[in-house]
């Protein structure tokens, strides 16, 4: 009995956890609001007091700050330096940090939560609003996430993030990490330019809608004309003689209901894949698995 009830509680917790995992973690741990820009000082604190438990240490990178932080070593040195040049140019031109990071593991956290804190604790972002965008890949979990902050949230709105996701995720699935990061850098350049011109990217109205509308039109027209057709048909056989039952002539002399058997079918509930959306109000973002 005991084991069962624990199991139920665990299952319930997991169920809720998948939806609100980040929120639960946020409430359990001392930092329930993100602290952008505390990166530098936290690094200090972490190295000074090793014996004390530091809740931020999970998110602190081992090396010095860089726009390309390849902890999981997914890129060659040459690729790293090419990418770094590109990202640095963008960062300087638009005063918005465009960064890439890879890690071995997200250490058990929800990917969006991990990425948001990685951004905060390592001092990403420029200016007083810590404007920036960070593309994080956790190779051990095969998860990726893009987090935005400050002006990054304006330049990379929901439509922009969806556009990034559509272009980057297929490359990740092919394990073409350099390709994914390079595409990301190019697209970030386009999106930043559009935002700088005062017109942040909006998703184009898909031509698919022409086909979808046509489909809807066909179905509705079909239903309407079938209704008109049905008006023309009035000859229907009367299979029952209920109209001719003599009033009060019916009586029931025997009635028994026998239960035979039952069948149970079960269908798996659709899993709620919390792939997109930054749960933290200070961050925007999108992500997924590959």
């Amino acid at each position, binding site marked *: 009995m005991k084991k069962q009830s624990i199991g139920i509680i665990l*299952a*319930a917790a*997991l*169920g809720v956890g998948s939806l609100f995992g980040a929120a639960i973690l946020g409430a359990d741990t001392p930092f329930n609001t993100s602290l952008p820009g505390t990166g530098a000082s936290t690094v200090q604190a972490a190295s000074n007091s090793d014996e004390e438990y530091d809740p931020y240490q999970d998110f602190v990178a081992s090396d010095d700050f860089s726009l390309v932080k390849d902890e999981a070593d997914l890129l060659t040195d040459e690729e790293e330096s090419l990418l770094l040049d590109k990202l640095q140019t963008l960062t300087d031109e638009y005063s918005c940090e465009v960064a890439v990071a890879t890690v071995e593991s997200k250490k058990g956290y929800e990917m969006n939560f991990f990425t948001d804190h990685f951004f905060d604790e390592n001092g990403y972002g420029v200016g007083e609003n810590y404007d920036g965008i960070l593309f994080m890949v956790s190779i051990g979990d095969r998860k990726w996430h893009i987090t935005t902050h400050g002006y990054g949230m304006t330049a990379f709105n929901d439509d922009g993030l969806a556009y990034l996701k559509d272009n980057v995720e297929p490359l990740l699935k092919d394990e073409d990490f350099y390709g994914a990061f390079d595409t990301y850098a190019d697209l970030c350049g386009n999106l930043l330019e559009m935002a700088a011109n005062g017109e942040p990217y909006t*998703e184009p*109205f898909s031509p698919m*809608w*022409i086909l*979808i*509308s*046509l489909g*809807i*039109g*066909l179905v*509705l*027209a*079909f239903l*309407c*004309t079938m209704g*008109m*057709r049905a*008006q*023309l*048909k*009035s*000859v*229907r*056989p*009367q*299979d*029952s*003689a*209920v*109209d*001719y*039952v*003599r009033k009060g*002539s*019916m*009586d*029931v*002399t*025997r*009635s*028994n*209901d*026998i*239960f*035979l*058997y*039952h*069948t*149970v*079918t*079960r*269908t*798996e*509930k659709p899993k709620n894949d919390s792939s997109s959306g930054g749960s933290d109000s200070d961050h925007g973002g999108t992500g997924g698995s590959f």
Partner: protein
Amino acid sequence: MSDLLEYKCPCCGGAIEFNSKLQKMKCPYCDTEFDMEAVKEFNEAAAEQQTDDYSWENASDNAWKEDEASGMSVYICQSCGGEIVADESTGASSCPFCGNPVVMSGKFSGALRPDFIIPFKLDKKAAKAGLSKHLHGKILLPKVFKKENHIDEIKGVYVPFWLFDTDASADIRYHATKTRCWSDSDYDYTETSHYSVFRAGNIGFNQIPVDGSSKIDNDLTESLEPYVTSEAVDFATPYLAGYVADKYDVSAEECAERANQRVKRASEDAFRDTVIGYDTVTPEDTRIQLKGGKTHYALFPVWLLSTTWKGNHYLFGMNGQTGKFVGNLPVDKGIFTRWFLGLTAGFSVAAYVIAWLVHTYF
């Protein structure tokens, strides 16, 4: 326990066996498992079910009186072979079923005299009004149908019907199910419980009409129902004046099959109403025994209109008692295509505009 018993599977009817591993009855054919009790109860209840017995007694044996028959003439249609009767003063020139000319074949003789007749209550003007109402608002109807002259003459015809009176004792087995749904964190569950529901009892029917003329489609005459049979009167020839009468050419015995079907269906429906508390109820096995089944011969009033369009023959009818108007109408392919394309275009543009507005402003 010496006698060897064979139980039938309530699901598939196969011989069911006791499965010692499950301690349950399991059907080797359909793999359904049952409790001992359920199978036993089912087999006992099924054994009690009566057998079918559909027997009718023809209660009309009226013969024509000499003077009645002498005043009437028989006409035969050269095209469809329809045989109609009219009194001498009325006469007939065209067939009410197909519109072709008829010829007089001579004096009326023999055949059964009707027991009852429901006299015409509605006149030709009412039939014309009924027709224009019937054609009104039908968008896909070919334009030519709306021109009055397209319809050939409207004729008042007494259509022969066999009326079936009976008391029936019904013994019906329904298959009923109840469904229950619940969920846990990973799965949605649906449990369906199956029941065999037995109902037996008595039910009486008064004057179920079955069309005794092969010239008119049974579907059409059934669509004209119901008739108020309480207004039927004993047959007398003066009622025929001004109208033509069709002679039955399908015997009561042949028509009984249709009456049986309708009795069976009506009993299933009526007793189904006493099966309460289930989500689905389907009749599985219906046994009907008729007691005192009697047939009578009657004439019912129908206004008939026939027309031909693009080589097809269309027959409309109006219940001469209640005014119910029926008749399938053709679809004008051109009008249909125009409406279909127009509506498709209209709905598509509307859907596109709505999608665009939603995309732009939300």
